[in-house]
């Protein structure tokens, strides 16, 4: 596959996906406002300005990921993958644990990088690289198995940090790749069956606190001060928001800190309390528009690799949204998966903007010439 330069029509930004950028920018703006409000008068009170910096950095990387032809990146996916594995393994071997987890790669200047978030970008490229080459209508079972093995390596490394939530968020990428490569329904059914059988077995692999969270999810009223505390407080905050919300920086549950981690994992609960169902509806509409826009770019992609990139980003977005917002409304158990573009966090924000850059990249090169 040859490199495809951008069409030389003189107006490089004209062809950018402004709908996608607009939706993402609006969501990010809501996020910054809510981070500001939720972290008022706490040790995180300047998180909003940091988040702005992350967004700025993310925007630059978005541009970069838009400019470099995605085929160039996809062709080097194996290199990035190797680098990712080395970094993850290095973290496990050498990193000092922070809060009991070897998750952070220290950078000069006191910054640190959550490698597992950037692994998502690598895995999207891997999907495009691995599944984009098949010319047959359906992949064979063995090939799906290979793909799973490729994913298993970083997932297991991340799981060992330990960070099961992030490891889990790699799954939708793989699932989307396999789905789009024409998995046989029989195989799909078999895989689902195996997964279902694996659930009880997997129970024993969970840490006690993870088990508690699942139990708390199943029986929310049993342990309101332990594992049930976070879901309860989230539910109360959301419910207290009502239709119109309690107003910016005026949500009692958020401001009086009943809501746990209101600027990161539960940022959407804080947002729901302060802006009500109306605000939630608006934000969800924006997310929906973003998702559909990404899917649209998949449909117009020039080749399988482009389509796979866009669709796996859409799958990742939908998955994280489902798990995070689902947790906020108590439809999902408590996990540490952040909400893309709203939750405070440097690595997650930057990595996700890089992924959107890839989607924009696919759009810019949708015309084959």
């Amino acid at each position, binding site marked *: 596959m040859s490199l495809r330069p951008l069409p030389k029509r003189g107006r490089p930004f004209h062809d950018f996906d402004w709908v996608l950028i607009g939706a993402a920018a609006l969501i990010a703006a809501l996020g910054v406002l809510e981070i500001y409000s939720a972290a008022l008068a706490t040790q995180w009170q300047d998180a909003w300005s940091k988040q702005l910096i992350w967004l700025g950095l993310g925007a630059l990387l978005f541009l970069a990921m838009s400019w470099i032809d995605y085929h160039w990146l996809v062709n080097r996916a194996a290199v990035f993958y190797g680098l990712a594995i080395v970094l993850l393994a290095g973290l496990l071997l050498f990193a000092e644990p922070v809060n009991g987890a070897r998750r952070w790669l220290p950078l000069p200047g006191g910054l640190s990088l959550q490698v597992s978030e950037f692994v998502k970008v690598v895995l999207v490229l891997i999907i495009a690289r691995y599944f984009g080459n098949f010319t047959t209508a359906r992949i064979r079972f063995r090939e799906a198995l290979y793909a799973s093995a490729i994913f298993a390596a970083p997932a297991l490394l991340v799981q060992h940090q330990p960070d099961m939530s992030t490891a889990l968020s790699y799954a939708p990428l793989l699932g989307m790749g396999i789905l789009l490569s024409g998995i046989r329904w029989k195989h799909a059914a078999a895989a689902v069956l195996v997964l279902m059988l694996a659930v009880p077995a997997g129970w024993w692999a969970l840490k006690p606190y993870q088990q508690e969270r699942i139990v708390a999810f199943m029986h929310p009223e049993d342990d309101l001060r332990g594992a049930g505390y976070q879901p309860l407080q989230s539910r109360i905050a959301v419910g207290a928001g009502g239709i119109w919300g309690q107003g910016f920086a005026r949500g009692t549950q958020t401001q009086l800190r009943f809501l746990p981690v209101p600027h990161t994992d539960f940022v959407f609960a804080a947002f729901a309390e302060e802006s009500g169902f109306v605000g939630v509806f608006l934000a969800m509409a924006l997310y929906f528009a973003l998702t559909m826009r990404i899917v649209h770019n998949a449909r117009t992609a020039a080749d399988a690799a482009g389509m796979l990139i866009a669709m796996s980003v859409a799958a990742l977005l939908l998955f994280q949204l489902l798990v995070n917002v689902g947790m906020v*409304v108590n439809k999902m158990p408590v996990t540490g998966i952040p909400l893309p573009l709203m939750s405070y966090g440097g690595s997650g924000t930057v990595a996700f903007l890089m992924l959107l850059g890839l989607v924009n990249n696919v759009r810019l090169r949708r015309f084959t010439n």
Partner: protein
Amino acid sequence: MSPGENPLRRSRSVEIALFQYAAAAVFLWLLSGFWQLQVQKSGIYAQKAEQNSVKSLPIPAPRGEILDRDGRPIVNNAPSFSATLAAGKAYSANLPDIAAGLDLPLDRLQERLAEVSPNLARDRIVLKENLSIADMAFLEAHRAQFREIDIVQSQRRFYSAEGVAAHVVGYVGEIGKAELAMREFSLHGPGDKIGKTGIERQYNHLLAGKDGRRRLLVDNRGRSQGVIESIAAQPGRSLRLTLDLDLQAVAEMGLEGYRGAVVALDPRNGEVLAMASAPVFSANAFVDGIDGKEWKRLLEDPAKPLLNRAVQGQWAPGSVFKPIVALAALEKGLANSTFRTTCTGSRTYFGHRFRCHARRGHGSVSLNEAMTQSCDIYFYELGKQLGVDVIAEYARRAGLGAKTLIDLPDEAAGIVPSIDWKVRLFRERWYAGETISFVIGQGALTVTPLQVAQAIGGLAMGGVWHRPRLVSPGQLAEMREGHARREPRRAPLAPWHSRIIRQLLWGVVNAGGTGARARLDAVDVCGKTGTAQRVSNRTRLEHNRPEFEDDAWFVGYAPCREPEIVVAVLLENGAHSYFAAPVARDVIKAHFDKKKRRQLQLSATRPTLARLAERTQ
């Protein structure tokens, strides 16, 4: 390849569409969750949010002080801290830890919570009062863990450790189930402190203030972030008693080592100057909630320390009843100067031999000698002639056999027997021999020390019996407590009868009578001794058990002509009035010493006042 011809892309449009539908479904599902929480159940969660972030804390109202007649505090308050608990189901998991940390019995705590929880109006109970420094440290350290606990500053009732006036004052305690249903406590709710006995109970409505309430905005650690509203507490009102602490102290000292009671009244108005009962208890034990064992020990103590013997104990009056009989005899024209009888130590009435306390007899006695020497035979003779009903009438006129209506709860009425009374109660006729016992204050007749003081005081006043009071009507009127001033009961004695009684009782103390030990130099003391048998003499001598010992009485007043103070003393198993008379004497002496001191002070300050007045001119 031209656009749109990518075989893979075209063939996957089904999967992409599938994803789009799935995405739409996910969004709708999530939105339905918000719809449920924010639109359908918003009210419930708004309420839960308020429960989270709004804390309602009581501001305990300090109880009014209880003062003596000179304004000296008998009972006051000391600032203390109480741990209060928000009663709620979600918190029960912490109870064992809390109970252990605060050193409280867990089962009792759970019991109390179970009692209070159904009552939604009161969402907090007091866990422990008068927190120690260790308790405070424990709660402070576990603040984040026990968010249901709050420390509230309050005023703790502070009683005398030595039990000064303990029986009069009573004590406070947490309101009980039965009391919640009483009209007198209708303004109180579960967990409140109320007066349980004594003045604390009688005037609970004045002493108890009204608790205030603060509604605070709190964060997740229970720290206040601002006050939403604050309703100030209305402190209880201070109450000035008629009690004189100086006299009270003397009375209590006199009772030391005895079981018994002392009552000192001002016979001119019924004001109680001293009221002591022994043994005493320290009411402080009740304030913080007395534990079951200690309570049981107090209840089952054979010495009955909780009983206010002055108003709740009933005893045979013995010879202190004789002045009343004497009056009856005088008014019936029986005991005139010519009426004499010969005492030989015993005499047989109605086939039964009755003894005089003097074995050898008093010889020929008139009323005067009979009273002075407390000759029983003389009074047997009077009783036989007067009959039971006449004596009973005079006893009731003097206030015996009925509650004095003093402002204390649970007063005993005593018994004045009569023919009717016996038939009604026992369906038995009155035996004439019973009159003989009755007339010397034995038999069915029982009285309280307060009744004795009131009866003899009224007699000394020439037939005016004031209702005894611990809070003067004037004081209550000042507090706008519209208590109608109760008129005294009057049955005026003829002046010469009055004089005879006075002379008789003067003689008991001052003319070689049985009450010589009550004599004072500074003031004329009148009085009468009494020794009341608990069992027959024979039983007492055979068994020689302390609880069979006679009860000793003395009642005296002074000055004889215009009495200001009447004191009744009872010593349970005190063997002889020999020991009772000095107790009364000391109280009377304290009264007059104090009066004299006052007058001296007054004369000392007058010139100063005059000089001050000159200077200002």
